[in-house]
């Protein structure tokens, strides 16, 4: 974890209420996809935890949905403004468990961290890091993206540009498969799954998933770095802090 001042270099709407913000500063504490930031905002006491979509040596990209005071304030911020940010929070996804044909499953505003994970898996595959098989490195990594309606779709093109095969599901059928991500998942074979999204989606995935996998959880947090015990959850292996021991938990340890 590090605390640092970041400068907003871009802040744009992706849909009516989902925005993408790029923050420039010291990104050295970012270690893995699936970690998060905790952002101090004027006029609010607690920091706001937001998952990291992607990062490099200079910048961090986040995607957030406008749901309350904090995210509304963020949406109004302009290029050049600075933010006090805690970086490198949480465990993130363990990409080493992907196997030959992992599937990534994202629901709504849970989708962003899967983008960084996809890129990490692609790098790993390029470096020969995926377990060897006939198909490794030739088939595209599949990403299932779930939305309520076509108007809410974001990042489909970015995932495709990063080399993924995107499979869409919308609840109203206005794009892709009519239904939920699990309707797509049920027809696939895969070696492992990674997911982020609403808990109702997790419960549905839990019913149909054929392999091990990792879920990234959300919870109201106090500190975001493991000190206050505000976001604890019980697992098969004892109590864990979503902010520090999570937000990513393995399927085998979760108590539903």
């Amino acid at each position, binding site marked *: *974890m590090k605390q640092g001042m970041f400068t907003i270099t871009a802040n744009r709407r992706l849909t009516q209420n989902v925005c993408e913000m790029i923050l420039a500063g010291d990104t050295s504490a970012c270690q893995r996809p699936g970690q998060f930031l905790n952002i101090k905002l004027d006029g609010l*006491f607690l*920091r706001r935890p937001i998952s990291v979509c992607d990062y490099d040596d200079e910048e961090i990209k986040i995607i957030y949905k406008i749901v309350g005071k904090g995210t509304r304030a963020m949406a109004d911020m302009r290029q050049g403004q600075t933010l006090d940010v805690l970086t490198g929070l949480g465990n993130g996804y363990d990409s080493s468990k992907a196997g030959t044909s992992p599937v990534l499953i994202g629901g709504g505003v849970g989708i962003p961290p899967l983008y960084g994970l996809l890129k990490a898996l692609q790098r790993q595959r390029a470096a020969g890091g995926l377990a060897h098989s006939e198909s490794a490195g030739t088939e595209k990594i599949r990403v299932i993206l779930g939305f309520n309606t076509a108007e809410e779709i974001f990042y489909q093109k970015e995932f495709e540009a990063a080399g993924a095969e995107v499979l869409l599901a919308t609840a109203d059928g206005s794009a892709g498969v009519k239904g939920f991500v699990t309707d797509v998942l049920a027809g696939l074979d895969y070696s492992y799954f990674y997911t982020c999204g609403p808990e109702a989606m997790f419960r549905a995935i839990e019913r149909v998933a054929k392999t091990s996998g990792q879920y990234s959880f959300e919870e*109201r947090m*106090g500190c975001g770095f493991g*000190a*206050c*015990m*505000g976001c*604890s959850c019980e697992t098969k292996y004892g109590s864990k802090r979503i902010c520090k021991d999570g937000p990513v938990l393995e399927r085998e340890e979760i108590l539903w």
Partner: protein
Amino acid sequence: MVNLKVKLCGIALDNPVIPASGTFGYGSEYAELYDINCLGSFSFKGTTLEPRFGNPTPRIAECPDGMINAVGLQNPGVDAVIREELPALRRIFHKPVMANVSGFSVSDYVETVAKFEADEAASSQIGWYEINISCPNVHGGGMAFGTSAQAAAEVTAAVRRTTDKPLLLKLSPNVTDITEIAGACEAAGADGISLINTLLGMRIDLKTRRPVIANKMGGFSGHAILPVALRMVWQVYEAVKIPIVGMGGVSSAEEVIEMMLAGATAVEIGAANLVDPFACKRIIEALPTVCESYGITNLEEIIGGGH
């Protein structure tokens, strides 16, 4: 040169700044960021006889200039604290620590303290006991002892018989007359009073029309409660002769001084740590300059100076 040293119940502190229990874990998260040996002392996470998972989530809610928590005394229990947490803490913090203890019966408090006392390494590490009789987030215990003068005195007297170490009783602000409780603790053998714990509060989510906190109510803390804390420290200072550890909303060097003028010998920093993990370090570093700007050369001399 400004003297920041104070003496709390006979033990010298390099400065009066102490992270409050429950906001600093066992120190390791903060030790990743800075050398926590700059702290005066450190009150570790409230410990109970048995392990506790605590309350269901959500346990946290945003408030105007503050927050509500309803963690519910989550901790691994005294045996695991002695076995795992204190040895780890010894490697990152080399000064006497404040052992914060909570319970659901008088014997819970006594047995927990007795276990700390019986372990040579733990006992030598602990400078003071801070007996929490004010947790608002657990039923049938915690705050129940801190809202009755008689019960507060009973806990104090029983723990007094268990240890010779300085005994601080941590009091709840959710009472009609805090001086009565403080006086009862003093009469029963307390060496100091620690106050205030959180104020009972709640928030309601407009979308769900339900309380934000799963436990419905929780403890309100943060900058907003500073005036209430100052008032109660002031009142208790006038009512007892034993030293006071003041806390509640303190988040700057100026407010540490304000709390000491009200009567605090040492000052705990709570919710501020959660928002700014460098809060204690920043306050300690700012103290000499801020003292000088108010003509203070010896911090110890200003204790109760507002009266």
